[in-house]
């Protein structure tokens, strides 16, 4: 029986205690251990990115650039962007939660290519270390967007090294994407048809397709910048016969879909959590599933909305604007469906559910402020101002990080076998919500007033709003530090979770917590629809400790 309750004093066999040497971790091909390796690494890089953000907010407390030189300020905001996007936001949910859960959710023993999975972590770390090395050795000052000719012909910072780092990190995403696509196609358990898949899997499938199609383009584009920089081959710099706008087309062809690489997995998490804590099937399952696919497809056709002010043709601008309004529709459909899922549910206020409720509010603001930027005339004014900064932080922090934290808390018992402390986790969620809004709401106002982004100095009349934003950042920092402490604390002191502490549906809850190395004692057979919460009664399950899966064993 897969979920026998451990007798007191008996240490159960699981993936965590399958080996305790350093080598057993560094050479593991177990997707769950690789997920833990990624968890530790992305958390470290998140801390670095967060500290850089704190430096930015400290500097902007006063209008005069007086804490650091302009040179250093430019390096700090560039590295904040590079670290947060390439080393945290893109890998966070897929490489940590996705890695851990995709095989469990489809009822497989591992991903299709376990060694490729390990290679992805090594490539990620190599890229991360090269980027860190570049940071320590002078840093880079081009902005995370690497626009030439500044990046290729003018900057004197570590552009080439950083680009090599980003290039490598791109390959780690590609490896993960290929692994997910093949696993989801070929390794689903018997009876697990496409429309019985959890929406988390649909979201990761769509994400993987974007990764595999888009990442090679940005990798080559960044390499071309390095080639122009090192060999003075004219590609983007007009002085050498190149075209700087060509770079922007190629860069955003990946980097706009990359936004969806960052947000789609979070949407997958939201679907799982909202269903579980509403004890209901996700409303409009098919619409939520296909909206992920629609976002992936249309998301590839909107890159030009980053370039409305560059001088691209007015008609091109109109096409990109129209498509940008279209891509907003599937996101809106998702939000309405999640909200409707709560209708007539049995809602339980656990920390992951608080993050979901926060996500809904913040993602709506992030999405709707995107309309200001998709709209051609208002974008002329708002492009490259703090309005854009606030907008994408509502999506990236309010969306992705809230989704990530919801997921991390929701599956923490599965990953570690221990419960996190509920009270302080809820407190942290509230602090993060308050701190986040205090940080970024004033930035919408600043942007409308005309405050350009990437400014070290700014006019005095905007200080008040900057002070509010910096105060919010301090609060947000406290909110982020709390989980690091209580989650670590719970590893030893948390209550024993048992296989299914939330009474959730889904195959990952039908095996031990933490799962055994091969995930399932025997291959599960799926006979019911996803989120069949009407068939599961939480109270009974908790009482028996084993629930439905015990009957199978």
């Amino acid at each position, binding site marked *: 029986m897969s979920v026998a309750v451990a007798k007191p004093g008996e240490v159960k066999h699981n993936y965590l205690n399958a080996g305790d040497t350093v080598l057993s971790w560094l050479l593991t091909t177990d997707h769950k251990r690789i997920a833990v390796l990624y968890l530790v690494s992305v958390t470290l890089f998140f801390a670095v990115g967060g500290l850089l953000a704190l430096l930015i907010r400290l500097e902007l407390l006063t209008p005069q650039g007086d804490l650091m030189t*302009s*040179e250093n300020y*430019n390096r700090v905001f560039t590295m904040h962007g590079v670290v947060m996007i390439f080393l945290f936001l893109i890998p966070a949910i897929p490489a940590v939660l996705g890695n851990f859960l995709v095989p469990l959710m489809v009822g497989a023993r591992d991903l299709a290519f376990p060694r490729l999975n390990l290679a992805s972590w090594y490539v990620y770390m190599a890229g991360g270390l090269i980027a860190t090395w570049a940071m320590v050795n002078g840093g880079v*000052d081009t*902005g995370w967007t690497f*626009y030439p000719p*500044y990046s290729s012909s003018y900057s004197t910072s570590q552009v080439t090294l950083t680009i090599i780092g980003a290039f490598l990190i791109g390959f780690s995403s590609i490896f993960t994407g290929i692994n997910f696509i093949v696993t989801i196609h070929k390794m689903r358990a018997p009876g697990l048809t496409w429309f019985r898949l959890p929406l988390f899997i649909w979201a990761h499938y769509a994400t993987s397709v974007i990764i595999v199609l888009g990442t090679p383009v940005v990798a080559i584009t960044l390499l071309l910048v390095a080639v122009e920089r090192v060999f003075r081959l004219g590609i983007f710099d*007009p*002085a050498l016969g190149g075209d*700087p706008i060509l770079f922007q087309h190629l860069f955003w062809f990946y980097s706009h879909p990359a936004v969806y690489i960052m947000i789609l997995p979070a949407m997958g998490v939201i679907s799982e959590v909202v269903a579980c804590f*509403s004890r209901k099937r996700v*409303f*409009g399952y*098919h*619409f939520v599933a296909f909206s992920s696919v629609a976002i992936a497809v249309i998301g590839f056709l909107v890159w030009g909305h980053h370039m409305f*002010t*560059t*001088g691209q043709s*007015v008609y091109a601008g*109109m096409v990109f*604007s*129209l498509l940008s*309004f279209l891509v*907003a*529709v599937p996101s*809106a459909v998702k939000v*309405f469906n999640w*909200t*409707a899922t*709560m*209708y*007539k*549910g*049995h*809602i339980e*206020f656990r920390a992951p559910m608080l993050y979901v*409720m926060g996500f809904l*509010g913040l993602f*709506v603001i992030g999405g*709707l402020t995107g*309309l*200001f930027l998709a*709209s*051609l*005339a*208002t974008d*002329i*004014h708002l492009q*490259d101002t703090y309005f854009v900064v606030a907008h994408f932080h509502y999506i990236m922090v309010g969306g992705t990080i809230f989704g990530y934290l919801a997921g991390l808390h929701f599956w923490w018992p599965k990953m570690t076998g221990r419960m996190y402390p509920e009270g302080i986790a809820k407190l942290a969620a509230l602090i993060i919500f308050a701190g986040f809004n205090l940080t970024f709401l004033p930035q919408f*106002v600043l942007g*409308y007033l*005309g405050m*350009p982004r*990437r*400014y070290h*100095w*700014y*006019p005095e*009349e905007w*200080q008040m709003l900057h002070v509010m934003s910096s105060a919010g950042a301090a609060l947000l920092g406290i909110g982020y530090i709390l989980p690091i402490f209580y989650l670590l604390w719970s590893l030893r002191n948390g209550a024993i979770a048992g296989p299914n502490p939330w009474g959730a549906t889904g195959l990952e809850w039908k095996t031990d917590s933490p799962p055994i190395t091969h995930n399932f004692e025997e291959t599960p057979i799926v006979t019911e629809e996803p989120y069949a919460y009407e068939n599961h009664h939480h109270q009974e399950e908790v009482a028996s400790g084993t629930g439905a899966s015990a009957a199978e064993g």
Partner: protein
Amino acid sequence: MKGVALLPDTASTFAQQVDLLFWFLTAVTVFFTLLIAALVLYFAYRYRRGSTASRAGAKETDLRLEIGWSMIPLTIGLIVFVWAAKLYADAYGPPPDNALEIFVIGKQWMWHLQHPNGIRENNELHIPAGRPVKLTMISQDVIHSFFVPAFRIKRDVLPGKYNTVWFTPTKPGKYHLFCAEYCGTQHSRMIGWVYVMEPAEYEKWLASGGEARPGALASGAGTMAGVPTASLVQAGEQLYKQLRCNACHGAADGQRGPSHYGLFGKKVKLRDGTVVVADEAYIRESILRPLAKVVDGYEPIMPSYEGLLDEERTLQLVAYIKSLKKPLQTAEVKP
């Protein structure tokens, strides 16, 4: 802390139009944010675990709802799209005929502005209220972006290519000018002021060669306006003669090169059969990279002036060539 700003100045006709759209979008945002927040909180309270509210008739999906909440955002999106696209096409389209033409050169890290009568300014721009202003802009190094929040106007300033934008200032005053595209170390110091003046005051300012500075105009960021020795066109004419452009480009189409008289705005047929409009960008390219677009009937023999002319002198040549009208006119003609 000096004052607290919550609303930007509104000082151009475009700004008034954009603000209307901006506030419409803000209303949409606030409405839907409150709607979702209210529903989430209400459901969370009413259907909390253990509450006695009836759950009868809960559905798993509803096609009419799905269609409804797809169509509402789509409709709002399409309305905003059309509204915004019209304004955009105006601002980035051709300016009215009476527009005052200013040339802008961006370089790390300053703005250099040239008036048609030859007045030059650094990091300051003086313009009259009520008259359309057209900016023709180019960068000497990296990408910059010319941004005046009070006008709601922004346009990237690219190396190697002219970009244009126009607007009509409405309200006299002193407004921020920013570089909005990150351009390196002193990006946040690539700033200045735009002075919108009453037309009469502006005339006085012009007549004094940019010396008459109304009010407290002495700003630390700006430098003194250059006293004009010659108008842009006159400077261009001098350069034209000095470089002996007229040796090949005469009053009428010659053997070696086509005439420049009446060239501006004309459709030009190229050797490869394509037809281009002779705008500022075309003239500039033909001076710096003559072989890129060779006129039909001519050999690719013109030498390149790339590296010999900086953007300022190229602008003067372009201004002079633009001023050459058909039938034959003397070079004194002002644009």
